[in-house]
């Protein structure tokens, strides 16, 4: 009965094709030495941002929940992987240095030495409880999705149950994000305060392998995650689930009268997208090499919403386009790639003015092209306009609109 996902949503196939081509192209260029390792990392990170943008689009563009906290879930995923990377990496270093001692070190000594190494910067050497799993990958890796998922579940349950919607909900998500980043900034948060976690680009067990290789592997992993995430969300937003989610966005009260428990659906979407955001973060931060509380600052989540808006919300590829386009442009402008513009009396340095430009583009898109960049695709395959404001009845003699006004 049901046609396959690709048949009903040809854009999925096009997207996967484009992603495969990009992946092959970047791999080729990197092998040929035409693009630098750091640029490969930038591209890999961009794919992770695209993945979190797709998640954002599902929660905002499809379900209508303007969450300004999804980059916090992304950051939690980064911290979760970072703890493991840092622990195991430090363990390797400590093992080497302790091996020179006369007596072989006890496990406790090793653990203390690791603690001193990691927490020395915040004047401590004890492992906080949240590091309990950090030494074992099989326990720590699930935390990448479990912790963001649990946080989203608890937060969402409280917020949706009280029927907080619209701008109030957005403010609440910002408050959550702010609380999280303030907590992380504290030295006794157990995550090294504003130092964050660093050295994440060094993958344990891969010592002999250069960053040029590792960067390509991460790029592939990011592309694979984006492809899987895209198909997963395309599946969720198609079919009956997609119908209900979009209906909730358009008129949640009406959906209740159809017998759907709206809060459960919102909670499902909020939690699942938070988990995927965590996964994206876990792939992003090893490529960035460092994570600190500034990454989960409230403004970061606002940027995420801006990308999705510029790319075009309510269509998954729009979110990808927005994230890729804006984040690459942003690193070009802020990285000093863009030449300064001399106006005689004043010189525009893009590192300072980029945010202004971004803000103006956001306003322009909102006002003049509400469908975003993705809306350009409607010129190829037009979508029907869904708003008829003409006569009332279908037949001649039916009321005119003016007659019907109460």
């Amino acid at each position, binding site marked *: *009965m*049901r046609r396959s996902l690709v048949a009903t949503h040809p854009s999925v196939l096009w997207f996967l094709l484009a992603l495969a081509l990009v992946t092959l192209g970047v791999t080729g260029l990197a092998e040929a030495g035409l693009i630098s390792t750091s640029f490969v990392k930038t591209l890999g990170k961009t794919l992770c941002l695209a993945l979190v943008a797709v998640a954002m689009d599902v929660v905002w563009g499809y379900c209508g929940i303007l969450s300004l906290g999804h980059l916090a879930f992304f950051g939690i995923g980064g911290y979760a992987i970072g703890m493991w990377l840092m622990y195991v990496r430090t363990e390797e270093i400590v093992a080497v240095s302790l091996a020179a001692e006369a007596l072989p070190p006890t496990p406790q000594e090793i653990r203390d030495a690791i603690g001193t190494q990691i927490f020395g910067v915040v004047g401590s050497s004890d492992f906080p409880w949240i590091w309990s799993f950090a030494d074992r990958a099989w326990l720590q890796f699930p935390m990448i999705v479990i912790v963001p998922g649990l946080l989203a579940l608890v937060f969402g349950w409280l917020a949706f149950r009280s029927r907080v919607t619209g701008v109030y909900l957005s403010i609440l998500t910002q408050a959550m994000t702010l609380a999280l980043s303030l907590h992380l900034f504290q030295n006794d948060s157990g995550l090294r305060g504003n130092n964050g976690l660093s050295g994440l680009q060094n993958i344990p067990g891969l010592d002999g392998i250069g960053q040029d290789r590792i960067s390509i592997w991460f790029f592939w992993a990011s592309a694979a995650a984006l492809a899987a995430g895209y198909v997963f969300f395309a599946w*969720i937003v198609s*079919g*009956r*689930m997609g*119908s*209900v989610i*979009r*209906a909730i966005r*358009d*008129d949640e*009260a*009406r959906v*209740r*009268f*159809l*017998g*759907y*428990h*709206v809060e*459960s*659906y919102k909670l*499902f979407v909020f939690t699942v997208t938070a988990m995927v955001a965590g996964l994206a973060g876990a792939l992003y931060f090893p490529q960035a090499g460092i994570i600190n509380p500034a990454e989960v600052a409230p403004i970061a989540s606002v940027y995420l919403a801006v990308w999705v808006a510029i790319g075009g919300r309510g269509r998954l590829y729009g979110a990808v386009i927005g994230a890729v386009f804006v984040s690459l442009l942003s690193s070009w402008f802020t990285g000093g790639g863009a030449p300064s513009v001399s106006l005689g009396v004043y010189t525009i340095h893009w590192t300072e003015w980029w945010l202004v430009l971004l803000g103006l583009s956001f306003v322009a898109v909102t006002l003049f092209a509400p469908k975003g960049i993705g809306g350009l695709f409607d010129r190829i395959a037009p979508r*029907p*306009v*869904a*708003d*008829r404001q*003409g*006569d*009332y*009845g*279908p*037949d*001649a*003699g*039916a*009321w005119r609109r003016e*007659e*019907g006004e109460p």
Partner: protein
Amino acid sequence: MTALLEVSGVSVSFDGFRAINNLSLTIAEPELRAVIGPNGAGKTTFMDIITGKTRPDSGRILWGEKSVSLIGMSESAIARIGIGRKFQRPTVFQTQTVRDNLAMALKGRRGPREVLFHRATADEAARINAISAEIGLADSLPRIAGELSHGQKQWLEIGMLLAQDPRLLLVDEPAAGMTPAERAHTTDILRRAARTRAVIVVEHDMDFVRRLDCRVTVLHEGAVLAEGSLDHVTRNRDVIDVYLGR
């Protein structure tokens, strides 16, 4: 005929204004009932109370053989036990197709898990086809609901109501803005539905109500002013004063 819904002594105030005042009403299954009354009489509020949108300050609302109280139940739970509603202004999901609108309303499991793994069956497709034929939208199934005319949206919403297969249908001004022919069609649909279910129709148009040919309840200032056949209530002195005579 047994009582399906029993509303007794229900009152509700908005900022001190009594929109519903000690209202009592019983409806059997099957039954067709028309509710009429001047603007602001509380007809829509009455439906809001039954469907859980507005919580009454006092009174009882009992449902079904087991006399379950509806007060305090969530809107979605009330919908699931078998109360469907059509709104005064047609509210269909404008960005989705007629088919998707009907499919969403189709009776079935409503939990996120069932919905996520739901696969359309031939049975469902057949039901959607049957309903779309009944509401005269068989050719419009792939159309986006937002393109429909006002009258077609009214029908689509009635179709969604039928798709839910509720035991009680609450229909708020279904014929507003329709041509006489469309009105006649709407009456037919409602009368057919009322053969097996309880149907409460709110309508201003007297001809429409006459064609429904059923028991009529007149509401005024949140209370029942009169009840009986249309001829009976239109002869009632109070009804003439507050409603017909104006």
